[in-house]
């Protein structure tokens, strides 16, 4: 990682659509440097994808997101890795974090309906051998996600011309 890598990451983390040429202009370098840097970042798995943030609520398409606290028994020699893997392999699972504190894994899950999510928890998650218990929280409203405030359009409140 060099200074250029870091600046590229900072920019595309906010807007992955900034092109190679524009990045070169913004960062005062040439396109080749940017291409090299991005290839390296991709190959090293530092850049893991170029996703789009969507506020599904506004589309009218039903989606339910749940945060699930999972308490598990760590396995000898493997710790939490194996159980985490078993959980993240389910495509409906969005993210799995190992957490310090009152429980072990935090799983976020996306389903079409409440029932779909609860059936995943009761039938698949809770029945895993090492899982001791789960607590499911349904997300009622997203205010801010990935540093972006939802439902707020930025308005320029400045005077139009000032000294």
């Amino acid at each position, binding site marked *: 990682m060099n200074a250029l890598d870091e600046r590229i990451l900072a920019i595309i983390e906010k807007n992955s659509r900034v092109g190679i040429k*524009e990045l070169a202009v*913004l960062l005062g370098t040439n396109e080749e440097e940017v291409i090299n840097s991005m290839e390296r970042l991709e190959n090293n798995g530092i850049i893991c994808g170029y996703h789009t943030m969507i506020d599904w609520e506004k589309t009218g398409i039903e989606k339910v997101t749940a945060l699930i606290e999972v308490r598990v028994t760590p396995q000898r020699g493997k710790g939490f890795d194996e159980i985490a893997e078993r959980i993240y392999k389910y495509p409906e699972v969005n993210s799995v974090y190992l957490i310090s504190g009152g429980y072990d894994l935090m799983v976020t899950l996306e389903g079409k309906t409440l029932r779909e999510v609860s059936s995943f928890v009761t039938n698949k998650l809770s029945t895993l051998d090492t899982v001791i218990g789960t607590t499911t929280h349904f997300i009622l409203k997203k205010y801010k996600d990935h540093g972006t405030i939802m439902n707020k359009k930025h308005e*320029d409140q*400045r*005077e*139009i*011309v*000032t*000294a």
Partner: protein
Amino acid sequence: MNEKNKKVLSDKCTGLKPSGIRKFFDIVSEMKDAISLGVGEPDFDTPWHIRDEGIYSLEKGRTFYTSNSGLKELKMEIASYMKRTQNIYYDYNQEIFITVGGSEAIDLTFRAMINEGDEVLIPQPSYVSYEPCAILADAVPVIINLKEENEFRLKPEELEAAITDRSKILVLPFPNNPTGSIMTREDLKAIADIVIKHDLYVLSDEIYGELTYEGRHTSIASLPGMKERTIVVNGFSKAYAMTGWRLGYACGPKEIIGQMIKIHQYAIMCAPTTSQYAAVEALRNGDDDVSMMRESYNERRRFVVYTLRSMGLSCFEPKGAFYVFPCIREFGMSSEEFATRLLQEEKVAIVPGTAFGDSGEGFLRISYAYSLDNLKKALTRLEKFVNRLRRNREEQI
């Protein structure tokens, strides 16, 4: 109501030129859907932790005057800031005081130091208030016209040529609004030599100091023999995106600062208390915000310079503030005419260089304190306009 021989208004005031910005503002405000590249303030909101301290101070009931010269904590933070950034030691108690924006400090410097007929040397293009403030303080403004070929820096020979027996204060407005020009340590050394030789004082307006994109800003006060003849004016507006809080400060010799505080005490009482508490937080924990904003301006600066040059407009590379100052002489019209037509034909508001002095003729001030999207949109329109002018010119030939 008035006897006939009594004038209602002061001649000195009515004699002041109306601000060129104001004139342009009146034209622009007619046009509701114009995109602007015309503001002189950051597009960032004040960082939340700073706003939060302001709010907290209100909740705690800190709603009283502070001492005339400002909160002790704030003056101490400023002293420590000057020490760590410029390695200048100021006594917070006697050599620093808090003003209502940098603009008050400019006004008070003149009022505290000028005797009628003293000359104030003002390099232009520069911020609009030096000349009128000098006039209001009974000074004679002496304009030094900076040149594009020098990247709008003040050259020692230009200063030397403007000095007379009555010269007293040199205004040093760098990093510069509207040109984006900066003065390096070397540039300043040459100026300092002349200032000392002719026993002048310097009003160094360093409000854009934190927005320097190559190297760090140098204050002329940090050069040998200069602290005792420099009033450093700075504030929170640009570095911390706090324009609306109206908070600035002045650092300088205690005899001068003492007189400035005297006027401030009669005219203002003290700078806004809420703003002062917020500013303490800004200086204590705001460094990361400043570098984040600086980096962001820097990217946009490169983008704007690149885009202007791609459309064939010449502009030197500005290394400070958040303005680019492209040349439009090739079109054979005045800056004002260009700006007005651009506004009418493409609905883009850009301030003509002449709003900052006659030597701004032939230039425009483009502010890049805007989102990249906004910059792209506006510059695309500018390019359309420029291309149309060039096409028309060719057809005429």
